């Protein structure tokens, strides 16, 4: 059975290219446009094996979103990959402290993302 990955990004074009890379690798994908939508999607989804999230988003940014996920008893073990244009160490530290497991700076290439996904995704 295919594993499910949640993509959280306010850019629909970015979501499309991420979805394309993941679906072609055999994963199922659900999408959300910001952190708030991401939390709602996690509440309604049966099981999410991994999250790929942007950092700079309206309504709820990626760091806050990850913090909320890590506070959730059912979701706190879901690994999170931050996929963002941010490459400052301070931001990466914020992401790490919030609970992210990996940090990829956009633009990404599919093998790079798939490598991180395969290393982190829940069994």
């Amino acid at each position: 059975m295919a594993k499910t990955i949640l993509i959280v990004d306010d850019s629909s074009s970015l979501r499309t290219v991420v979805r394309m890379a993941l679906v072609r690798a055999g994963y199922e994908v659900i999408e959300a446009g910001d952190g708030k939508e991401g939390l709602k999607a996690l509440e309604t989804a049966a099981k999410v094996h991994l999250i790929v999230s942007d950092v700079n988003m309206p309504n709820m940014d990626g760091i806050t979103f990850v913090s909320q996920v890590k506070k959730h008893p059912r979701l706190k073990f879901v690994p999170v990959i931050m996929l963002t244009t941010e490459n400052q160490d301070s931001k990466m530290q914020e992401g790490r402290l919030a609970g992210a497991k990996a940090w990829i700076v956009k633009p990404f290439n599919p093998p790079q993302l798939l490598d991180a996904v395969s290393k982190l995704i829940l069994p």
Partner: protein
Amino acid sequence: MAAMWVAAASAVWTGQPVLAACFWLGVALTAAYPLLRKRLRTPPHTAGGLGVTTEPMPAEATAALMQRLNEAARTWTTHLATAQTEMHEATAKLLQGFDEILTQLDTIVAAPEQAAAGGVDARSAVLEECESQLRGLIDNFHGFVRSREDMMGSVRTLSGASSGLRDMAEDVAKLARQTNLLSINAAIEAARAGPSGRGFAVVATEVRRLSAESGDTGRRISERVNEFGAHMQTALTQAAEHTEADAQVIHESEATIHRVVGQVDQAVTELNQRAAELGQRGQIVRVQVEQLMMAFQFQDRVHQIVDQVNSSIHSAVACLQQALPTGQTPQAEAWRTLLSAGYSTQEQRAVLAGAGARARAGAATPAIAPRDATGTRTETTFF
């Protein structure tokens, strides 16, 4: 200040309309800022440092200037929003189109791949089946020929038997002749016996008549047997000719079947090769389309840069509007901080540092993180 915007222009100048719009907005801000500085009448000793309030502008002029700033900010941000929306919609359509192309390509590429998976075995199996069925037809022809040869064998046997019948007919004729001689002798002896031999003469006459009839019957039998023999010989001759013709036809049919199967095999092989080639080319196109789609990530970066510029315009105008009534120039450091608020990319920060040229160069060559052949960073930081 001007250098900063020139650096920004050179850093973002990639031929993209939205980035070009950012550049021209930068140019406009660059042009506006010295004017405002002049209006604010910054004393020489405060240049690049702390602002000092001197001779505030008349309230009417200040209000007019603030209005112009508002108008400019509104116009710039509206243009930026329009450019953002257009680029977003166009990118979404392009991505959707590419996605559909990929779906179609998957269908095209999958068929030859599936065919190639068991293609050779399937092809040889079908051809063997065809050849087997066609050879079955030839075997049937062989069967017909054998049946006819068997029949003709029977006819030859019958022909041999007819020869025996002819001999027997000849024997009958010989017996009839001998019987006739006996009847003649009997008639002579009956005549010599006189009246007492009359009855015997009648018998001798009847015997002679019967022997003559027997001779005729034997002759007719012989004639019929000869006729049958001639017919059978004709049939045997014709059968021999047909057998030879049939053998030739069968031989030619076998050659034709072999040739046709070979031609079909060659045609199917060529078709398979072309399908495989098509699949390979489709695979190449698919990879290229995927790479093109990945390249559309620029839209996200441009979106963030333009968003920051949009926000920066609002902040800068608000700051200048606050400064106008007091005549106090914003501090250089505070001004840079204000303009750089919300930076998220390395290129933006490089611009802030006045290193536009380096940022531009860094975008094309490895500087911060490893990149692949397409210039995409390949580094992932695991925590």
